[in-house]
């Protein structure tokens, strides 16, 4: 099967985008291809909006004009025909999703089992599709008549066509995308893939995709960074980001304070705030997000902080959280295995998940359980594309059981805060040491043998009795790190944080492959993982049309993107913001560095209400926070954050550019165009534009600032903007 497919791929399609998975030396200026994939076309019967479809047994049939598409039985396998693809090597069935809607408006998805080229029909592929809903949102679907099918690929959706299941006919209406597309299929014009060279070297022409890329790789686009990417191109910019010094605003070097604040501190102005709360972490974090140069590292560390969660709820001092964040940012472009070690031995984590209190006589399983469930492999065995492995009864297969947790609990016994003067450089008398890594007390380590994770060719599945605690830990982390789930598990979560909530298995698989092997036989190389996520064809492109593509902006990104887009600065506009903004972001459901639980603000598996789609950030979108989002926009657009003891400089946005657009054109069109480009990379619908224009024109043209504010409020508070596509 595999070799037949490989040969088949070699035969077709010269235009292959091999560069996606290759690593280049840092110095070289790398070329970026056209980011736009072709839009797939589902073939219909001649002059009809009925999909060309045939039973799967007719796979060898090449004369498409002879196919008469009737009705098919539910649960049968059929062929659908698609053209206008530009497939990469190894890009197969799991890159496609067949979306289905019935006459009641209910949504289903049929699995695509295989894709094969149709002989003698250059550029046409036959998709083998199983007519069984895989979303399972609706129980016991009954198909009796036509449904509408469309095909999604790399964030692009095909035309939609009718397909008869059970019988043809019924009350389903063609939707706006129902377009008859009879053969012969169009041949891809590969010349379109390279824009005309111009005398002044431009690295990356695609302005809409530049904005999209910056939404994914930074805390929001700015004109400066956009210009840089335009010149350097994506790949070269990524390489410079991997080397960029971090942070731009140094981590505050806070001293360790006693576990109980002294009376002196309590009596000193701001002492509690500056040492015993997350305030310094939050203001530092937002300043770095607003103005830092190493945006990608800051963004990646932020994503990692939502995977390896430590909360300010239990982390008493800002210095503890800084020490933790330093480890995240240090390894953001390092190796995942080293991240595992340093976080396991980090005191904030040791405290948060109780490892510093776990001894052989009084074991505590908290960290042991969560490192497996949340930080590395998850609960169920995964295929390399992130889909669930199923047993013979169609049930998911657990990755471990309570016994495994008990054994890992033993592994992690015996560690304490580093309070040995000789071994702990940051030890401070009278204050718990949350800066140095944990120290082993071998006397408290469980010396029995341990049985760890089982998987094919498992590394260190059995640890012998009597080992040193550090050896046990190293070997146990190796056992976890080499589990086949780690690559798809971590890859999928990072894709969700950076690009899209419900990535195709093919996308997850491409990133997981980079995790498993960066091209130089290194596993866990975060640079390779991040690069693959951001350069994947499912991430790239000027426009994404798949209705199931995108993600709801989390409140932190929602806020920083808008602030950066409008040149965030101090209250009076004369200097930088002080970063005191968490207090207006937290009401949207994301109190920065204060997640309620170890499950982060939202779970990666959250299902958007009323759908079967993953949408983690919807976990904190409620009637309450939806209004909080609109009110946040009201605050930043119509007001400023004033100067106070908490905010020495305050925060405001700069609307002069938008105001100028409003002044220059009394019709409002120039203002709308400017905002459309800036915030929505040109995807604003005509309807939306007209609605906003009506409101803008209700403001006298003598008040261009209010016109600008009106337009920005309406775009930024809209769902169309809040969903990042």
């Amino acid at each position: 099967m595999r070799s037949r497919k490989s040969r088949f791929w070699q035969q077709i399609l010269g235009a292959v985008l091999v560069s996606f998975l290759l690593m280049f030396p840092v110095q070289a200026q790398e070329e970026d291809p056209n980011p736009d994939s072709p839009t797939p076309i589902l073939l219909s019967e001649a002059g009809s909006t009925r999909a060309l479809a045939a039973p799967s047994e007719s796979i060898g049939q090449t004369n498409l004009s002879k196919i008469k598409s009737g009705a098919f039985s539910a649960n049968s396998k059929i062929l659908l025909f698609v053209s206008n693809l530009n497939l990469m090597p190894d890009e197969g069935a799991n890159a496609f999703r067949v979306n289905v809607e019935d006459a009641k408006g209910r949504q289903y998805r049929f699995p695509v089992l295989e894709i094969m080229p149709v002989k003698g029909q250059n550029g046409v592929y036959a998709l083998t599709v199983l007519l069984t809903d895989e979303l399972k949102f609706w129980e016991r679907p009954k198909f009796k008549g036509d449904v509408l099918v469309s095909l999604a690929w790399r964030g692009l959706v095909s035309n939609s066509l009718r397909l008869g299941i059970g019988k043809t006919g019924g009350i389903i209406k063609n939707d706006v995308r129902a377009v008859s597309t009879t053969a012969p299929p169009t041949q891809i014009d590969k010349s379109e893939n390279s824009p005309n060279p111009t005398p002044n070297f431009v690295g990356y022409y695609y302005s809409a995709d530049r904005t999209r890329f910056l939404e994914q790789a930074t805390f929001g686009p700015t004109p400066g960074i956009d210009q840089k990417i335009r010149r350097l191109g994506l790949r070269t910019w990524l390489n410079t980001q991997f080397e960029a010094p971090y942070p731009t605003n140094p981590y505050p070097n806070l001293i360790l304070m006693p576990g109980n604040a002294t009376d002196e501190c309590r009596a000193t102005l701001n002492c509690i705030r500056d040492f015993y709360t997350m305030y310094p972490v939050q203001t530092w974090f937002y300043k770095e997000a607003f103005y830092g140069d190493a945006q990608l590292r800051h963004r990646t560390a932020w994503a990692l902080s939502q995977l390896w969660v430590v909360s300010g709820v239990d982390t008493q001092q800002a210095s503890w959280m800084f020490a933790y964040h330093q480890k995240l940012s240090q390894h953001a472009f390092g190796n995942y295995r080293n991240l595992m070690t340093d976080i396991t031995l980090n005191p904030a984590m040791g405290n948060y998940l109780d490892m510093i209190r776990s001894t052989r006589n009084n074991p505590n399983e908290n960290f042991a359980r969560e490192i497996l469930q949340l930080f590395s492999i998850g609960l169920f065995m995964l295929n390399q594309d992130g889909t669930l492995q199923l047993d013979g009864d169609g049930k998911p297969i657990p990755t471990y059981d309570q016994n495994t947790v008990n054994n890992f609990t033993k592994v992690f016994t015996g560690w304490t805060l580093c309070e040995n003067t000789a071994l702990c450089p940051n030890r401070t008398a009278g204050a718990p040491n949350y800066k140095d890594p944990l120290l082993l007390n071998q006397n408290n380590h469980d010396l029995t043998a341990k049985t760890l994770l089982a998987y094919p060719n498992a590394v260190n599945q059995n640890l012998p009795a009597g080992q040193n605690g550090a050896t046990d830990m190293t070997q146990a982390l190796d056992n976890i790190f080499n589990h086949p789930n780690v690559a798809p598990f971590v890859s999928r979560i990072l894709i969700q944080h950076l690009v899209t909530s419900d990535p195709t298995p093919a996308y997850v698989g491409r990133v997981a492959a980079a995790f498993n092997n960066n091209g130089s036989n290194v596993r866990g190389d975060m640079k390779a993982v991040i690069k693959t996520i951001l350069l994947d064809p499912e991430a790239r492109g000027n426009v994404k049309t798949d209705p199931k593509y995108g993600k709801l902006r989390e409140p932190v990104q929602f806020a920083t993107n808008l602030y950066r887009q409008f040149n965030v600065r101090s209250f009076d506009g004369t200097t930088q913001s002080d970063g005191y903004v968490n207090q207006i972001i937290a009401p949207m459901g994301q109190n920065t560095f204060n997640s309620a639980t170890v499950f982060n603000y939202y779970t990666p598996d959250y299902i958007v209400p009323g759908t079967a789609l993953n949408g983690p950030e919807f976990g904190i979108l409620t009637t309450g926070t939806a209004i909080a989002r609109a009110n946040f926009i009201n605050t930043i657009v119509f007001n400023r954050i004033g100067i106070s003891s908490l905010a020495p400089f305050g925060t405001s946005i700069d609307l002069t550019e938008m105001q100028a657009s409003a002044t220059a054109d009394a019709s409002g069109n120039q203002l709308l165009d400017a905002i459309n480009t800036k915030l929505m990379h040109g995807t604003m619908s005509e309807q939306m534009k007209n609605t906003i224009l009506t409101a803008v024109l209700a403001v006298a043209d003598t008040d261009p600032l209010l016109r600008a504010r009106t337009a920005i409020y309406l775009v930024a508070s809209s769902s169309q903007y809040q969903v990042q596509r």
Partner: protein
Amino acid sequence: MKQNRREFLTKSGCALGMAAIATQVQHFGMMSALAQTVDGSNAPSVPNDYRALVCIFMQGGNDGNNTVIPIHSDASLSNYSSYSNARTASGLAIAQNALLPITVPRMNNLSYGLNPSLGVVTGGINNGMHELWAQGKMAIVTNTGTLVKPMTRAQYQANSVPRPLQLFSHSDQVTQYQSGRSDQNSFTGWGGRISDRRTQADNPGGLVPMITSISGAQLFTAGQSTLPLAINNAGTSLSSVLSPQGFNTTAASQARLSAFNQLRAQDLNSDYIAAASNITNQAIQANQALSTFQEVTVAFPNTSIGSQLKQVARLIKKRADLSVNRQIFYVQIGSFDTHTSQINGQGTLLSQFSQAVRAFYDEMVTQGVSNSVTTFTMSDFARTFNPAGSGAVVGSDHAWANHMFVIGGAVSGGNFYGGNTSNGTPFPTLQMNGPDDADNGTNARGRWIPTTSVEQYAATLARWYGLSDGDMSIVFPNIVNFPTNDLGFMQP
């Protein structure tokens, strides 16, 4: 610019906003009509009374073993010694004379004890929950937990009956309590599914969804066709809890408000945009309904759970204005994940819980609806009978079957309910590696195997609420695996 909200609504007539919304908002009754006409028939007969379920989720896994404790010394059952032998040395046991006694008819009138934090506490504003037992307004459903089918210890250890997915894992056990099934992951919660089935019949003209969460989005409240109202706790008044800020009566501002509302009817071909707009629509519609509100009478404690239940009480007081006959509420209290420092940690949380529940009950009495409002608890799981650690930091780890509280005038209170354990009573045998322990061998920690399933517990509440027999297996697909769907703790 700043003005009284009611004044603003009057001046602007609020019709502008509503006109735009009317074109797009799916009426809450209509939404579930879709589900019902498709899936089956519910002859719509609008009830002439009011009923509400209030779920209190104890996040993190409340240690039931330190919540309901045997006081008696009857040697034929687990008694106080069984408890203290396991927990005294490590410092986790509560002194016998500190327990708040309850007499349990089902246990041959033996004496059991509630955690002292459930009674009169220092700094409390009422007498707590304990008194409600003797008044017959509180029942305890014992040894309850996630199950796919009834399961004996031998079956558990032989793995011969399907186990719930990922026992002892917070997120999964929370999910299963809230979804009401343990054999597969579910996109919906049992509260949401009740709402799917009942909204059209019970609240045909309802101005707010049948379900309200005061703790954000929760699986429990998610249905296939219905969404919850999610609002802040009583720290924010009902009239401003969902009010978009920054609009005034000028023509320009009203034009902006109109556009703000219209935009949510556009670009709905994207599933994510449609979902976000739908949630905002619900907020705007609910905001119209909540623009006036009346304060409650009884004093509530100034805690998170107190403030959440106070907001529930305010909404219940507005039930006629909101045109609702049936409501489900979700609140939560956390964090009970007491791996360490449990004595103080759990004690503080239980007293907050008890004070808030008592205030809420008293307010329901004041409002005259105490027989119409039933409060019940859920929690991730219980905790190991065997302590974790010792001394001041002693705690306990993740376990399984737990004890649940049900409070209200419609409860057949003052008794234990649920299936019998190995000892022939509904209270488990408190013995590590004993007949009710899922764990085996010398390292067994005491994780009781449930003898009452979440579904049975939930179905009993749902039946009282008005769910029909026909809908029972739709809302609780696995209820057929269990001997009864009515545990008897609700009055007929």
